[in-house]
């Protein structure tokens, strides 16, 4: 197996695959998500939404539309626990993402202000959509599509802890504590995805900015789901709603959290072996 890694999406994207030519296509797919969804690039689809969608409909790439659709799905399902508009406003106010020269300060505080029709996006008032809480997972899913369509039979993509594997293998994944990076648990994933989100202080890394508020008993939460995009969204919902995340998940969804005391807490695995 070949393994490559590049800095993309503000983190490290690692690709494991059995064919060299496929790896290049995977990074192209991830770079495309980066170009379309980065709030830091003024001409990305996302920045164009944040600059203009309160004035006129903004046309976006089909990939952007499909991620927005999924973000709105999870916002609705979770009753706003996952909310890319509230997260965007908080991210701007905390200085995590920049306001571009012609971009108004965000007034919108809810996903309900964001309207998607086909590939056309509108905001009811000025607002900042932030897909940072879900775009890494989405990029991982796109990367897996690229690997498969290039003929790979097995592979794994890890974008800063958002991981998806496919093929006959069972992939071991080590879960580490957010601050110390101390390994606390080992998870095995098969043809599925896992994401971890945690609370890191500003400047230490990514993650805190999209979670919508501090969770005072966990430092991180990991969710296994069929796709990385959904696993990513579900970590944010778990962060806000605790164990109730399970009612949103669906088949195959499992979760665990690392507590402030460094303990591993199972959220839905009665079958879990604790020793």
């Amino acid at each position: 197996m070949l393994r490559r890694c590049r800095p993309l999406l503000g983190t490290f994207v690692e690709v494991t695959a059995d064919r060299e030519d496929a790896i290049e296509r995977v990074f192209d797919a991830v770079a495309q998500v980066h170009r379309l969804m980065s709030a830091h690039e003024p001409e990305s689809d996302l920045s164009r939404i944040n600059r203009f969608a309160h004035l006129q409909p903004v046309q976006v790439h089909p990939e952007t539309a499909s991620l927005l659709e999924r973000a709105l799905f999870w916002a609705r399902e979770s009753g706003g626990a996952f909310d890319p508009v509230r997260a965007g406003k908080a991210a701007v106010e905390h200085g995590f993402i920049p306001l571009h020269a012609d971009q108004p300060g965000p007034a919108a505080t809810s996903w309900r202000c964001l309207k998607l029709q086909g590939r056309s996006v509108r905001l009811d008032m000025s607002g900042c959509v932030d897909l940072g809480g879900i775009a890494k997972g989405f990029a991982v899913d796109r990367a897996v599509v690229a690997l498969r369509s290039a003929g790979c039979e097995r592979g794994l993509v890890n974008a800063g802890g958002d991981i998806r594997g496919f093929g006959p293998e069972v992939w071991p994944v080590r879960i580490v504590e957010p601050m110390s990076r101390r390994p606390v648990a080992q998870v095995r994933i098969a043809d599925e995805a896992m994401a971890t989100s945690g609370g890191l202080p500003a400047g230490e890394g990514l993650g805190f900015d999209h979670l919508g508020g501090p969770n005072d008993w966990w430092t991180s939460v990991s969710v296994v789901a069929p796709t990385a995009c959904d696993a990513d969204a579900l970590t944010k919902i778990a962060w806000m709603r605790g164990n109730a995340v399970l009612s949103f998940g669906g088949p195959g969804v499992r979760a665990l959290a690392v507590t402030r005391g460094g303990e591993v807490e199972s959220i839905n695995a009665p079958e879990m072996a604790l020793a």
Partner: protein
Amino acid sequence: MSKAGADWFTLIPVAAVAVAAAAVPASATVYLDIQAAQQTMFPGASFVAHPLTFTPEQRKAIAKASGVGIFEKTQRIWEVRSGGARTGWFIVDRVLGKHEMITYAVALSPDGTVKSVEILEYRETYGGEIRNPAWRRQFVGKRFGSSVQLGKDIKNISGATLSSRHVTDGIRRLLITYQLLLRNA
């Protein structure tokens, strides 16, 4: 195994972790050696090594202009040539984070534009050992390998997302180095 099987996850015993911390870093992954990175980033080209040892004045100027103060004394630089003409620069660099040491390669076009970046090696640890000079020294002159075996060498890590800011800072420093020392070379 069944996806919802009884052994979905296992806790790593604390004692085993403590022993590992004393002996080896928590995780190290080698992605590409220098030669493989050269062929990936500039296929078919030839490479002329021009290691650059900075004078104290040069170090000061680069640190001031880039805002990045800590870097290696000698920069590993290759001029890339194809068909008798310069087609770019290949630079190997290292950056340190709180928990990680990253060796990476940057491909520059002749006019100093970043063409591509590849991570060559990523060492991650916990407990802050990475800042320790003795810990760092043990990797000086380390040889690279380039293949991984499934299930044996492969480490997949998931935690709160690490930022790639140190690499971004490193690339900014390399672009300043290019401006000051390579552009007219």
